[in-house]
């Protein structure tokens, strides 16, 4: 009698203030995606139509925290994911979007929405459907507890693959020489 197949781990992923480059790098594992799908099941992710993160084993988040909506999504992930992973420069440090941290938001708004020469008529968007931007872009660990950090812009597919296969097998992930980058 054969043993029941092992339960698939549930994995949720999302992008906050990021560019989806880390998700693209995850897809860059190419055909290794198929054996991975034998071991995991995607919950909320840009690849599925699940809109809210359910109870998950692993949560993977790219992008920093730049508005109220990002805070809400991040807290939902933390509450539901046993292990939370900050992936890529934006999630780990704020990344390139954090370059706005030393700027005055009001001046930025005026320039982009009111004074840019190619505008016909400008106004500053103010609809309640748009979430409040934060003054600063924050890395994830300033908002919730994070279990693992994978640096890089983005981390390579091999780094993500190595990390996930270790984690799924129950080993402590260790990225060896050549797999860690800080670009």
């Amino acid at each position, binding site marked *: 009698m054969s043993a029941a197949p092992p339960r698939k781990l549930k994995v949720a992923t999302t*992008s906050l*203030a990021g*560019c*989806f*480059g880390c*998700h*693209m*790098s995850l*897809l*860059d594992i*190419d*055909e290794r995606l*198929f054996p991975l*799908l034998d071991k995991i*099941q*995607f919950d909320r992710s840009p*690849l*599925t*139509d699940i809109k809210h993160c359910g109870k998950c084993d692993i949560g993977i988040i790219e992008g920093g925290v*730049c*508005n*109220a*909506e990002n*805070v809400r999504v991040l807290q939902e992930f933390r509450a539901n994911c046993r292990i939370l992973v900050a992936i890529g420069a934006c999630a780990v440090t704020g990344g*390139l*979007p954090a370059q*706005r941290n030393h*700027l005055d938001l*009001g001046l*930025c*708004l005026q*320039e*982009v*929405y009111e004074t*840019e*020469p*190619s*505008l*016909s*008529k400008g*106004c*500053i*968007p*103010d*609809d*309640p*459907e*748009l*979430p*409040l*931007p*934060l003054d*600063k872009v*924050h890395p994830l660990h*300033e*908002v*919730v*507890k994070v279990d693992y950090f994978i640096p890089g*812009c*983005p981390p390579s597919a091999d780094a993500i693959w190595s990390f996930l296969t270790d984690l799924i097998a129950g080993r402590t992930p260790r990225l060896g020489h050549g797999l860690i980058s800080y670009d």
Partner: protein
Amino acid sequence: MTEANSLETDRTPGLKRVVIETLSRVEGHGKVTLLLDEEGHVRQARLHIVEFRGFEKFIQGRPYWEVPVMVQRLCGICPVSHHLAASKAMDLVVGVDQLTPTAEKVRRLMHYGQILQSHALHFFHLSSPDLLFGFDSDVARRNIVGVAAAHPDLARRGVLLRKFGQEVIRVTAGKRIHGTGSVPGGVNRSVPPAERRTLREQCTQVIEWSREAVHLVKRLFEQNLEQYRDFATFPSHSLALVRADGAMDLYHGGLRALSAGGETLFDHADYCEYWERILEDVKPWSYMKFPFLRELGPEDGWYRVGPLTRVTGCDFIPSPLAEQERRDFLAFDNGSAARATLGFHWARMIEMLHAAEVIASLLADDDVCGDDLMAYGERRRRGVGVIEAPRGTLIHHYRVDEHDQVVRANLIVSTTHNNEAMNRAIRAVARRYLDGRTLTEGLLNHIEVAVRAFDPCLSCATHALGKMPLAVELADADGNVIDSLRRDGG
């Protein structure tokens, strides 16, 4: 037109709000809201771009040579398009009007690799589940994992086509995502001969698979003719780059705008003066602007960009297999597919085939391994770079001061051009499929199917800044409030 405008400005109190948040299987962040009256009739339907990042502002003060590498971070899905649009702008800043043959061909190779990988991703990973299983099929199955289970060969081809495009990018840009291959005035490497051989060996297979993907979309149209022809379809002006002889060219050319009826509004316009042709409006409910053709004004001047406008707007495609498919596409059912919103998918696969053919011919050219990489000229203060990104016309515009620092940047990204068109598609679907009905998940997915047809790269479209009348508290891992903010709106 009047009806659509009244929907947009409806402020009747007491309407029921339905929100689709977050839009999934699209390339970025956005949400759709619907306002319904007591009988469930749709009074308003809007696509909101809810995030900002501020690239136009924080690029200022950086040295110009950093820009082609920095701005890629607008988008991890089509970073090469931003890399090259910025490079083209900075070519002008360093006084280079003509690249060396090697630089031009290596950049083209990089760009067509980008087109191929992004189109494969968009079709196979994001949109094919709707088309293969039905718009309101089981939500658990409606994703690439479901496709892999039901059509393993197809899913595998999608993954391998994308992989090939990414490999073309890696050997030309140095890295699959956020590479550094292109620099103002040229490129910093050519294609290593061993990598060229490896890629060439795969071209026949990639072209064949791309051709079969075109035929797959054609079969879907044949099997669901009425739905595919009519879904979210409406007349629209269009904009795209074309080569001097009218051929499709995704790397360089002049701007051509056509009216909904196919008349030429302008042709071979110099993109360095794009503001003579295009202006932008802002609406209070989206961070994404609304561009329009200046001569027609904001009410009538909105237009579409992307695969559909390029395939239908060019005079011919300069590669034989894709040109044959273009003719079949235009002739299908008296041109119905060429006008349909879901025709974007068919056109996208024709472009993927074209990209595969272009890559094969560039890899056959010894120039891609040449060593004359850089051209030089006299410094200028302004540069505009325009390219046809996977999602459509992409405009980068910079001013650089005498200290080499960027002092002004304006970016009109591809998805922004389609903003009004996507809102109209949403309204059309809401009225046709949702009006007066009980809203189920499957029915609501029809809205997302319409958005997905356009190649929305909402990631790129969120580069501006805003402030809203809301309050938020930011707490650390122990629950201590570390930031709190309250605003009364702009």
